[in-house]
């Protein structure tokens, strides 16, 4: 399966929608037609989706996306009922099934703002997968913890740090290796803490938080 997927994902370039199974095409059309949720309400009323991915290596252009794990925070809380896990290295699915699973993620996320650590890295893999596999130009709103954390918790660090350093500073480090979902849950907890801090700094809506994330990324990259 992995090889088949590789052929599709990493050699073929953008896939023509005509080759997609009918149900996938229909679902994608529905997804495109849905309106993205408003981002001007308080964080508590915004559903964020925290995501982490598993890859075969660091380069989005060459390495494979092996899986993703996501949890939704519909009201600032991590809800077990609002979670999603996709393992692409499993060998039990045919191509149509893989198409359906990737599409299912789009339906699950429902255009909510995505929260992750090192947004460009995650975005790169997702963009390529959705492009090559489904012909979708995946451009969600990103909240990047890697850049936001030093921006909002500058008393802890002024510069970007490896994730584990942040976890340790916040005292929420678990022991041992984490799988993708465990990592996502850690990110979600950092994000919960960050939301409280952001609200305190009058970054009270998702829209503002996304702006802040973009600004932090830009400023810190360039200055």
């Amino acid at each position, binding site marked *: 399966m992995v090889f088949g997927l590789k052929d599709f994902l990493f050699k073929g370039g953008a896939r023509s929608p005509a080759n997609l199974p009918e*149900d*996938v095409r229909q679902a994608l059309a529905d997804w495109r037609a849905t309106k993205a949720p408003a981002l001007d309400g308080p964080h508590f009323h915004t559903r964020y989706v925290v995501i982490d991915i598993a890859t075969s290596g660091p380069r989005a252009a060459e390495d494979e996306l092996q899986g993703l794990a996501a949890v939704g925070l519909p009201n600032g809380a991590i809800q*077990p009922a609002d*979670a999603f896990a996709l393992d692409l290295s499993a060998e039990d699915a045919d191509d149509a099934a893989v198409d359906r699973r990737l599409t299912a993620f789009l339906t699950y996320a429902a255009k909510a703002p995505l929260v992750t650590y090192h947004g460009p890295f995650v975005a790169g893999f997702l963009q390529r997968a959705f492009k090559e596999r489904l012909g979708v130009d995946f451009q969600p709103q990103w909240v990047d913890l890697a850049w936001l954390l030093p921006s909002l918790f500058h008393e802890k660090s002024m510069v970007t740090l490896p994730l584990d350093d942040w976890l340790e500073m916040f005292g*929420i480090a678990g022991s041992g290796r984490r799988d993708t979902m465990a990592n996502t849950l850690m990110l979600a907890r950092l994000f919960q803490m960050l939301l*409280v801090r952001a609200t305190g700094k009058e970054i009270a809506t998702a829209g503002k938080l996304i702006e802040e994330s973009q600004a932090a990324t830009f400023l810190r990259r360039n200055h």
Partner: protein
Amino acid sequence: MSTEQQAIGQAEMELRQQGSRRVAGSTQNFLKLHAPFDKMTVEALQLFADKAQLTFYAAGSEIVGPDSGNVRFFYLIESGKVQARQAGEVTVTEYSILSLSAGESFPIGAVTAGRPSTNTYTAVEDTFCYQLPAEDFLTLMATSREFNLFCTQYIASLLNQSRQQLQLQFAQRASEQQTLNSPLAGIGSRSPVSVAPETPLRAALESMSKAGVGSLVIAGNDRKPVGVFTRSDLLDRVVLADLPQTAPISQAMSPAPFMLEEHATAYDAMLAMATNGIRHVLVTDAEGKLTGVVSERDLFALQRVGLRQIRQTIESAANVEALQQSAADVRQLSFNMLAQGVGAEQLTQFISVLNDALTRRVIQLNLENHNFDGIEWAWLAFGSEGRDEQTFSTDQDNGIVFACADEAAVDGLRQRFLAFALGVNKDLDRCGFPLCKGNIMASNPQWCLSLDEWKEQFSQWIRVPQPEALLNATIFFDFRTLFGKAELAEAMRRHLLMQTSSNPMFLRCMAQNALDVEPPLGKIRDFLTDLEPDQPGKIDLKKYGSRIFVDVARIYALATGVHNTNSVQRLRLASKRLSIRDEEINAVLEGLDFIQLLRLRHQYLEGEPGRQGDNLINPDNLNELDRRILKESFRQARKIQTRLKLDYQVH
């Protein structure tokens, strides 16, 4: 909806379920580390993990309070610290402030009853909580026996778990001390005498004689046993069978000997002997090669210490030296009982019973040199001994009461009792009951008094409750007859209760005194560990723990005319007369029981052999469960203090 769309829907549902399972799995990993969840069934954990959401509360933020309306969640602290503060006026039944940490939950009462919380819960550190919606909480209560028990009998269920842990911990120790649980590898002969099957009978008997053993193992070159030969076989299988001394031993041995592997326990061996009517069990390694022999006698040696035997030995001891051995046995047996998970109340009473027997025997032995015929007198125990609450480290607190109608003869009689008491005090010291540092001993003329003198002494303390009188009251009012005329002590008791009931001022002073020391609960930290300046980081479990209960018990006993001296009995009986609810007093008693258990355990585990153990524990060294119970136990101490405060209007 078309079937195609259903296929996408199906995929999404499956992947959502997969995600949910993993999130729930992470919650379960947390739950498994904490009581009572670690004892709950897989289904119950699953229910909790599927429904509980994880929420963050920054330091300083309120989580739930009286103003939040009916409680919608059961909160379980994942990490951080939460402070509970009672809203409004302090009532008798609750603490005013307490701090909760990871693994603790709230507000159990309110969420069960579906009412607003009476406390305000505030995060004092950054805190993550699992929040289980009220309806799922109720489902869990209804479906999980463990969880229900936990919520309804919070402290009792924790205590039970702690006892089980204790048993495990002690099983280790106990096996080191060779009980019936110890593996055969450490028992009996490690280098048994063995010969080959073809060895001539005479040579085999010679090697038995030379080694001075009563049995012989017959094993092949591979060291695998094929038979046993014992002295009793000599009669039946050799002499009476007319077997020539040149015959190989294999003809005389009992073939197919009973064998156990090294990791089998002494108990297994004992069972095998009883079932098969044999006196020896061969011990082999995993390959079946001979490594030892365990005899019936080896097993008896393990069981040397037993309650009945100790009592018999004490009661028939001919001298103090014999009693010294018994004192050591008492200690050993109490340790074994501690290891078996016997509760503190029973254990301290048990220690008292045996120590009583020991003291009585010491008194009897000393009476051989003194003649008090025709005189009514009694040997009294005071303090913890008087209350049947002795721990492993107890010094002497005793006195004598005697009846003497002729006032002029009192002093002469006292001298005779003092001489006798000195001998008893010294002998008790030799048996491991150190002399009392405060000289509260029968050999002190102050505490060797006639009945009238005792009554007068009591009256004086009660009339003029100065600090010293109050201190004495806490020791001397807990008295009990160990030997002699119990009627004398009863007369003292009647006098005491009459005096105290007609002097309410005295009890109020006692109450004030009892409230001088508070349980070491911190407002933010769990425990205050800096109360003893020379013992930083430690808590004196006697001074700040059990004594609080004991003092309150004494006051209520005196106030309600309870004759008992034991604190548990005092509290039970007094609470009936004061119409305190059973659940309430049971929680208090469990708190006391746990603190006593910790003291016993500490004295045993930390104490150096031959040295008096202390009552100083470092709470950081306790496991999480024990810390929680200790905290709850201190809360119970605070609770009865609060009641005392209200009852006696002490502020």
